[in-house]
């Protein structure tokens, strides 16, 4: 049986490595560890925000969960209606196509993600066609109903228009409709509002949350913006160089961040108050690529806690990357110094 607490999706030791410096004549010896043995689960009907800076692996994680790229290793379990867990990482062919009914994706840029030659109807109906769902009449009805649901009303005035006739906010609503038309229960949303203007963004975020409530959806909400993560998601996971370094209830993580990287991220967010003198984030150096990372904490080079001991804290320097551990009340952090 599915209980509210049972995970909808459960990720175990998921990895994605890219070879670097390979050519036709030479096999690559080095790899970028874009996603490096991450584990997490998302309960039914809840949303997880994945935050981090460019290149931290958050988009790669989204592509793995939708199987747009094949994992280097690990498992992605999706709970079936009967409560059984199926490993998506092993799916192929027809099974993979059937799985796509349940897991959909919304992309960042609605100017790139919609085919300019397809009408709105054709765009939204395409997943139904691919999955072989409904007759033409039924598809028309489904698409029209969904357009109304995403706020493109009246649907009849949008059905036969082309993407270039719509504004950015309207296009993103079309992209949302396309993702939801096959009634998925899990949607990966990769920065769905970062290209939109502020006054439009709020409407799209509110819509996504309302639809999640109405349809019992779970999102993996990928964003670089902590405030957007807080607004949209129950849980928050912070990624750094391919690793999840902190994970917990969004409010708890933002109020009591445990990992020094999360603390730095939070303190770097500009304060919407001209009178407030925001202290500088406690971090040093800059971001680097996780190419064959040394077997130690990925954050070691930039960590001020590890640097408190002259020559670097030996616990952080000599041990492998710390495990993501429950530090109390379901608040996970990967740090030796918590």
């Amino acid at each position, binding site marked *: 049986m599915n209980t509210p607490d049972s995970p909808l999706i459960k990720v175990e030791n998921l990895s994605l490595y890219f070879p670097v410096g390979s050519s036709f004549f030479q096999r690559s010896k080095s790899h970028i560890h874009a996603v490096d043995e991450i584990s997490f689960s998302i309960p039914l009907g809840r949303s997880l925000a994945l935050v981090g*800076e*460019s290149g931290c692996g958050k988009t790669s994680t989204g592509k793995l969960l939708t199987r747009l790229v094949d994992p280097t290793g690990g498992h992605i379990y999706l709970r079936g209606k009967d409560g059984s867990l199926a490993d998506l990482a092993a799916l192929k062919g027809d099974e993979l196509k059937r799985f796509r009914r349940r897991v959909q994706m919304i992309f960042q840029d609605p100017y790139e993600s919609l085919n300019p030659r397809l009408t709105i109807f054709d765009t939204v109906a395409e997943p139904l066609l691919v999955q072989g769902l409904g007759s033409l009449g039924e598809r028309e009805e489904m698409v029209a109903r969904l357009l109304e649901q995403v706020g493109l009303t009246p649907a009849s005035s949008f059905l036969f228009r082309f993407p270039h006739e719509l*504004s950015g*906010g309207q296009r993103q609503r079309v992209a949302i409709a396309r993702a939801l038309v096959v009634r998925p229960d899990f949607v990966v949303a990769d920065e769905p509002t970062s290209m939109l*203007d*502020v*006054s*439009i*963004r*709020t*409407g799209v*975020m*509110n819509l996504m949350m309302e639809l999640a409530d109405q349809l019992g959806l779970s999102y993996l909400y990928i964003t*670089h913006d*902590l*405030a*957007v993560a*807080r*607004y949209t998601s129950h849980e928050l996971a912070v990624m750094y160089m391919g690793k999840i370094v902190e994970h917990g209830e969004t*409010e708890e993580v*933002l109020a009591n961040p445990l990992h020094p990287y999360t603390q*730095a*991220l*939070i303190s*770097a*967010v*500009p*304060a*919407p*108050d*001209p*009178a407030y003198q*925001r202290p*500088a*984030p406690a*971090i040093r150096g*800059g*971001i680097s690529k996780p190419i064959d990372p040394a077997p130690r904490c990925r954050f070691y080079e930039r960590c001020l806690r590890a640097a408190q001991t002259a020559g670097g804290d030996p616990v952080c320097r000599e041990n492998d990357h710390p495990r993501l551990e429950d530090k109390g009340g379901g608040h996970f952090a990967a740090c030796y110094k918590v």
Partner: protein
Amino acid sequence: MNNTLLALKDLTVEYKTRKGYVSAIDGVSFDLQYGESMGLVGESGCGKTSIAMSLLRLMPENAIVRRGEILLDGQNILQMDERQVREMRWARISMVFQAAMNALNPVYRVGDQITEAMHQHRGDLPPLQARARVEELFQLVGIDAKMIDRYPHEFSGGMRQRAVIAMALACSPSLIIADEPTTALDVIVQDQVLRELRRIQAQLNMSMIYISHDIAVIAEVAKKIGVMYAGRMVELAASGDIFHTPRHPYTAALMSAFPSIKGPKTRLVALPGEPPDLLYPPQGCRFHPRCSRASEICQKQTPPFETIQPNHWVACWNPLEARA
């Protein structure tokens, strides 16, 4: 003593397109003092970048100045001849663009590019002195001096943006315009660049116009803020007043549209509708179709941009009350 560096008076610019005239800037006026930092905030297409381009006389060919003047130390930029414009750019007003990668030429060393910018204005500068100046600038923006002979691709995103800032500072301008300089940067790097900009602006007592769509970023660098909507300036006041007692409904809406990481979590209210098509701007107040306070006059007459209290200007027929 007159301390005004820059004065925009009723600036009105249209772009001629095949479909008609796009009203990009409509009757914008403001002053900027020596050493003052000002923020221009608004959404895409509100005219904030068009203002920056007008200040540098970098408007596209199809731009037509309908009315108004831009006075720099009392001299109208719009009437300068080509030679005067060249002398003004970089030496008196310089600009930091959003895409630092595109602002640097990939096949020249970064130091050489900055030297070249200086030579445009001080052709007599001996090479050794030019190099010393670049070293000084790198130190000012926090880049290691040994990066002078490196190429742009060897710089990280934040470093490139610092190099572009160094270039903008090369000829000691009295005004620097920063157009979304941190928008493409990650939040920790953005924090570093904002701190540098703030420190340099104070240290050199330079005037700055900081353009952004993000009102929180503006709050961190600017002493006063101008809010733009659909080609018009709708409100102008000290940063604290804009944040704590916004008088224009659009400013208030803009402020409450940003989620925050602190304080109670509240549901954000989305502004209905979309910004207008500036080929056919709405009559009267351009915000009225989206405004909850709109009345009959808003649909017919353009509200004047007037002082509502000392140092606080607003263009609205039904402004919000000042909170007690």
